[in-house]
């Protein structure tokens, strides 16, 4: 039988082609050798969450860093808060985290306990932080993050609306009931489509505040279990029930569609929130002809506001980084370089370093935040320990279940019981 003489040769050719392709691919992947010069820079990546505005100034600061450190090239990326964390969670699983990235206190245990973060003692400059700030950057006594800035809870409100409708400016120690009464005065006075304040029950941070005002806490000392009873949660979820039923706070059908906060949209008279958000809201509110002010959040106990100074954001370095030195340089630069501090301003909160505080340019809104923090300094107490890794999921669950209550699909008690079941499952999953 006669064989086709070309067949074999064609196969040889194919094998050869495949081999050649493999070799070429391997060559393309090979390392460029030692790096770190202007022509052949080290590459590191840096990511954060935030809006366009933050992206603009952060990129400016990073560009300045690259100008001053010719041998380092920084790849930047950003996303909004939920997207950022969804992405990071997936990348955490595949051990593909950026060299330097922005961290939230509530996620510190989640990332830190997996050994995914580089211990920073002796790696970055820690000599200049304001007092008490580094405590919230430690996990099991090991420093794994550095705070960028600090913040605390406050009541951000429309001073012009409060004054126009005869509502007294809130003073430290004023009660939740008083706040509810103020909203009840404001909402009808403001007219259709505007509300005196938002529904505060769906945020676990505010419940934590409320528990701290009673001497309690959200999680236990070890950060592995809830530290309250379902009945307390049901009670918390009913604190706004009357206001909600009477239409004094915006209904969930409306808020579910909001892509911006109510203050910025000129429809909300007040909101409990992190104080460093206020300078961000101010330009828009002023453009709408309003004025914003900051006061202490409502309390159950005039002597105990439940407040603590929280790192608003932290910077961390991935444990898997191959460029620890360059990454540390970037961290030090962002927190300690006077020019960088000027560029970054108070976008992320009031700087956590003394140098930052000295060099930052203070506009009136930022001054208001500083004044507010000074005014409540006597009320600040020890921060709670870093929350459990599951806290991100628990926070989501908290909001989801409160939504069920708002829609009337569940009673507060039913939702509270289900929350405990779900939270226990989540906490058990990480034991």
């Amino acid at each position, binding site marked *: *039988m*006669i*064989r*086709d003489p070309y*067949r*074999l040769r*064609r*196969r040889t050719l*194919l094998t050869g082609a*495949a081999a050649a392709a493999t070799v070429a691919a391997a060559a393309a992947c090979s390392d460029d050798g030692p790096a770190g010069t202007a022509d052949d820079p080290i590459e590191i990546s840096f990511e954060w969450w935030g809006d366009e505005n933050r992206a603009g100034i952060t990129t400016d600061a990073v560009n300045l860093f690259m100008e001053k450190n010719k041998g380092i090239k920084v790849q930047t990326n950003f996303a909004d808060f939920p997207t950022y964390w*969804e992405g990071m*969670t*997936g990348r*955490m*699983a595949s051990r593909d985290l950026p060299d330097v990235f922005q961290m939230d206190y509530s996620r510190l245990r*989640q*990332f830190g*306990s*997996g050994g*995914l973060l580089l211990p920073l003692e002796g790696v970055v400059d820690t000599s200049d932080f304001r007092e008490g700030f580094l405590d919230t950057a430690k996990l099991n006594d090991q420093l794994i993050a550095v705070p960028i800035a600090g913040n605390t809870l406050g009541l951000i409100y429309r001073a012009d609306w409060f004054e126009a409708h005869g509502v007294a400016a809130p003073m430290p120690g004023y009660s939740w009931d008083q706040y509810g009464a103020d909203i009840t005065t404001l909402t009808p006075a403001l007219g259709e489509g505007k509300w005196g304040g938002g529904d505060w029950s769906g945020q676990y941070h505010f419940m934590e505040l409320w528990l701290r005002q009673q001497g309690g806490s959200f999680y236990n000392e070890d950060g592995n279990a809830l530290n309250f009873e379902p009945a307390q949660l049901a009670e918390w979820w009913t604190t706004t029930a009357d206001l909600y039923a009477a239409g004094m706070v915006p209904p*969930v*059908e*409306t808020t*579910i*569609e909001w892509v911006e906060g109510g203050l910025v949209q000129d429809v909300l008279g007040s909101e409990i929130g992190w104080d460093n958000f206020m300078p961000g809201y101010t330009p828009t509110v002023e453009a709408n002809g309003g004025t914003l002010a900051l006061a202490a959040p409502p309390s159950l106990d005039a002597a105990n506001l439940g407040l603590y100074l929280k790192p608003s954001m932290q910077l961390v370095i991935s444990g898997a980084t191959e460029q620890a030195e360059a990454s540390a340089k970037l961290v030090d630069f962002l927190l300690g370089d006077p020019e960088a501090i000027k560029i970054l301003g108070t976008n992320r909160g009031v700087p956590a370093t003394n140098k930052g505080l000295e060099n930052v340019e203070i506009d009136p809104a930022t001054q208001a935040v500083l004044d507010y923090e000074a005014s409540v300094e006597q009320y600040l107490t020890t921060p709670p320990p870093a929350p459990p*890794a*599951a806290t*991100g*999921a628990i926070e*989501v669950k908290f*909001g*989801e279940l409160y*939504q*069920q209550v*708002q*829609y009337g*699909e569940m009673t507060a008690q039913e939702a509270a019981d*289900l929350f405990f*079941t*779900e939270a226990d499952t*989540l906490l058990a*999953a*990480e034991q």
Partner: protein
Amino acid sequence: MSASPSTTAPPAASEAGAPTANERRGAAKRRTPPARRGERLVGYTFMTPWIVGSLVFTVGPMLWSLYLSFTDYHLILGGDFIGLENYTAMFNDPMFARAVKVTLLYVLLAVPLKLVASLVVAMLLTQSRRGIGFYRAAFYMPSLIAMSVGIAIVWKALFAGGGPQDQFMSWFGWDGGGFIGNPDVSILMLVLLSVWTFGAPMVIFMAGLLQVPGELHEAAEVDGAGKWHRFIHITIPMLSPVIFFNVLMETVHAFQLFGPAFIIGGTAGGPAWSTLFYTVRIYALAFVDLRMGYASAWAWMLVLAVGVVTLIMFRAAKNLVYYAGEDNK
């Protein structure tokens, strides 16, 4: 007759015929003639990119997730083998019942509506009219873009409170606001999105309709059958294999709806879990709750459920589907 790639002259070929027959008999024992084996190798070589791709990106992860479904694997902390615990836990999970309910409701609404819409349009578009090509393209267009993020965002805007849907329906006395914020009707947004994208079943229906022999219609018309009778007694039976195929494909797809639901309702299936599709819950379990093992068990339960539904459909089809030329009972 001859499988041999012989190029010799005819007399030689007849000589070669005998050994070929012998060789074939031998091949039955050895299975593969050497020449064929070579061809096969070349064939597999050309398929290598696909084989490697599907092993690495589909089969591998699937087997891994099957294994994970028997563990309590946590995305960061890892996990241990726990047997069938995940599968039993599911039935005590209130979210499981919720997700199944939402998904089944969607399948039962979206599949029939989409198929009826696509059949009606297919029948209109099989007529020969001027410019029919344009209409065919126009009706197919939505399916090209529908599963994109962009369309989901447009959909969100259409059904927002005070948006076009809200305004339009308010003229008729509707006071339920936008579908986005109303848990009673929010699922309809996704049903409408699915119905709007009937391109794929429409094309298949059109192909099926063009296959129905014209003489059947003519004969029936001569016998005095009206349009409706011809549709029921000729078109539907002749089309039944195509209908079956479309029902099957659309049902399987509907069970797996994820993208638009995720963008419109988020991981929480908002508002109030009314768009908490099964796949959305899997995503939330895996990437919000970090419970990869449990999420994998959910995923395999979906595979099982879709398999059972498909099996039931094939059983039912035996009596319902008419294959022309196989009716010698």
